[in-house]
């Protein structure tokens, strides 16, 4: 059964958008590696939910900012499912801070998880994906909106967009596509944390479609990029934000 099944690794998929992606790819027929860095309980819940729907998944702990840890998680994926076809570099953090108030520690941590984490995932994918595979990175519509207090976060996401264009050119000869999804505000715990109802309502009003995003709005875009219908789309950034930018 797993012999013909395509295999996806989704980083940071114990919660939020990542969890929705893991479940969506599983329902598309992928065997899914649910990567997490600290939330073993929620990661196992995602695996259980996938299995309850007849899908295949395992949870693997790896800190994306450590290359050895990422490499081991790819080993684990291959041992469990025989190979790797799709890597979704979703793991990321977003802690807002005006630049004057941004500590060395927050800057380094944002770079380590968002940028080094995506670099580690892409490098490992470039070395190990089967031909015809897919790399799907995550940027953000803050690249374009450029609101105050997003400098560190937006810097990492801009860099990911630049790498997407370049790595697409490096891997095209193996029919591997590299694309990026750039969501706008999505109603996850991460986004809603410490925001009042009024703040959330005001953010929803920014969007021409008049709401904030839901994790499944983003998962369906990832599903498209991981599937056969997107085979000619390569080196692109797709903003999924209800039209806000």
């Amino acid at each position, binding site marked *: 059964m797993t012999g013909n099944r395509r295999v996806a690794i989704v980083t940071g998929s114990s919660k939020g958008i990542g969890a929705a992606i893991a479940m969506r790819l599983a329902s598309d027929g992928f065997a899914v590696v649910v990567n997490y860095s600290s939330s073993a309980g929620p990661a196992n819940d995602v695996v259980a939910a996938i299995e309850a729907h007849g899908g295949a998944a395992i949870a693997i702990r790896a800190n994306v900012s450590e290359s050895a840890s990422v490499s081991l998680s790819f080993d684990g994926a291959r041992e469990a499912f025989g190979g790797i076809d799709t890597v979704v570099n979703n793991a990321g953090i977003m802690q807002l801070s005006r630049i004057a108030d941004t500590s060395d520690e927050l800057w380094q941590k944002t770079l380590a998880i968002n940028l080094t984490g995506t670099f580690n995932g892409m490098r490992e994918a470039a070395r190990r994906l089967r031909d015809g595979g897919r790399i799907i990175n995550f940027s953000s519509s803050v690249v374009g909106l450029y609101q105050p207090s997003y400098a560190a976060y937006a810097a990492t996401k801009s860099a990911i967009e630049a790498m997407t264009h370049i790595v697409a050119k490096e891997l095209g000869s193996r029919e591997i596509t590299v694309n990026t999804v750039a969501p706008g505000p999505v109603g996850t715990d991460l986004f809603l944390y410490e925001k009042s109802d009024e703040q959330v309502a005001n953010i929803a009003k920014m969007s021409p479609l008049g709401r904030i995003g839901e994790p499944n709005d983003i998962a369906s*875009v990832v599903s498209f990029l991981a599937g056969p219908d997107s085979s000619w789309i390569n080196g692109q950034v797709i903003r999924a934000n209800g039209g806000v930018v």
Partner: protein
Amino acid sequence: MSNLDKKVVIVTGASKGFGAAIAKGMAREGAKVVVNYASDQERAEEVVRSIRATGGEAELIRADVSRQADVISLFAQTRDFFGSLDVLVNNAGVYRFEPFECVTEAEFHRIYETNVLGCILTMQEALKYFSATGGNIINIATVDVSAGTPSTSLYTSSKGALVAMSKVLAKELGPRGVRVNVVAPGATETEGTRATGVLSNATVEKIVAGTPLGRLGQAEDIVGAVVFLASEEARWITGQVLFSTGGAS
């Protein structure tokens, strides 16, 4: 997966090339498709026949999108055939590539009347027929809007206007539930591009070398992007330009 089950779709300029591929591809996904054409009735009929032969639903409607009376009739006939409208694909377009000094006033009007005015007319008319819950517009542009290929000034600028308009309309029409997006194909092998000599062997070689996936595009290659944007899967995407180029820009 039937992503467009029972959706009513108009594809303009669907007698050949991209339009024919899009019409067939959307019908495969369950859409009821209006195959619009301006002049090549025979080829348009072939597209309709081919859709029906595989169990799909399609109707043929002649209309020159640059003429308002034609456009009004196109949409009225669509409602007569299918009763509603869900998706408009503005694919009809004309081009001629020539150095900037050779551009004439007459050619400006020819290109802009179909590529820009034509889309204005069809989008305005579509708004009268979309349901109260919304609708979906997909405009076909070209990779040249970012690549700036020499000797394409009229054509590329007309598509640039379409891109800008799409971004405006995404914001203006979003509150009504209407999404507006653009698909920008790269260099593609169609009868048109072969027949007009746009794709000489030397050009093809250069294009392929600049395409990470290592080949020239085929009309079929953009169908996936159009179907995706037309479907609920893309419900959160509007005002975007989706380049479908194999990675060439």
